[in-house]
């Protein structure tokens, strides 16, 4: 899913991990939030917003990433900026 790719790339640059690992972390957070058998192509903007605010925050806290609040805010902004991808990549 393209929005995960975009958010993964952003997270990878911010936290200094590989894009693959960043995408994997986001997918894990989605499964934490929505359920283990989530169809990534059916995720909505609101779903992703909740994922970033809740489960991804927890996952990042586990890794003791510094200044998580700013990072979560930046990720939410990145999602807002790229939200049209959810629609245009899924129709």
């Amino acid at each position, binding site marked *: 899913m393209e929005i995960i790719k975009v958010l993964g790339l952003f997270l990878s640059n911010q936290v200094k991990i590989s894009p693959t690992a960043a995408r994997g972390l986001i997918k894990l957070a989605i499964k934490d939030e929505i359920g283990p058998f989530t169809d990534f192509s059916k995720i909505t903007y609101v779903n992703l917003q909740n994922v970033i605010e809740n489960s991804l925050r927890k996952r990042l806290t586990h890794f003791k990433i510094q200044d998580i609040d700013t990072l979560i805010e930046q990720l939410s902004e990145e999602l807002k900026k790229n939200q049209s991808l959810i629609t245009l990549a899924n*129709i």
Partner: protein
Amino acid sequence: MEPIEITIMLLGTIMLIISLMNGIYLLWRITKTRLHHITCLSAFFLITIIEFVIRMAYSAENETGIVGGITVIYYSINIISYLFLLIFVKYTFYLHRKSPFRILITTAIIAKIIYTITSVMYEIEFNLQIRHVSKGCAIYIIAISSLWLAYSSLSFYKSMKKTEIQEWIKKRYLIIGISAIILAAQAIPTALTPYNASLEDPFMGVLSIIHVILNVSFAFLSFVAWVMPKQIKHYLNRSFQMIEEKEFSEEELLAIIGQELSKGDINGDN
């Protein structure tokens, strides 16, 4: 029937069929994706068809010289599809983001009310000043909704040009942007249409042909952008290299992230 009338009717029918396909396809996709705001885009295409059908009934009533219920219904429904387009742009590009949506939708609703009242008034009074107001409102609604869609799509396309997103998705933004400019261009023949002119007037004939060609082009490009048959998708994606995503268990992934964070190693693949 004059050749020009046959041409317009033929092109109009093509436009209606393509718009119907667009509207139904989008409705079907809502059931698959749960992206409910697409209803607005589907409504945009389907209401365009209703507008066209009512327009034919209106033309028949108009020939009798009576300003009846069909005229009122026609002007009440006409151009309303563009309000749905504005809502679609808001929910696709600007949810929880700053945007001119409130101003655009408020002014568009006011313009639509004025358009409906002045259009019906003109049918009764034939006052050219009233007609100017009615036309101005129609042009305003068409222009703001389609140009906002064009701006949103094309600016996103520009910002995404170098990102590793599949080519067909990037091109979808481009095609939507171009089609929206074509939609906005409809305002030009609308503005230039002379009052009380018939298709026998050569200028009116040319304008009508241009208008209907713009309509068909918009419907066709929308079909390519939204329905996008698989062959077109594969063709647009021909230069894009799909990277096979490695599958890791949760434990493996957490161990990799832990290692990368401790080493500052970001040499993994993309």
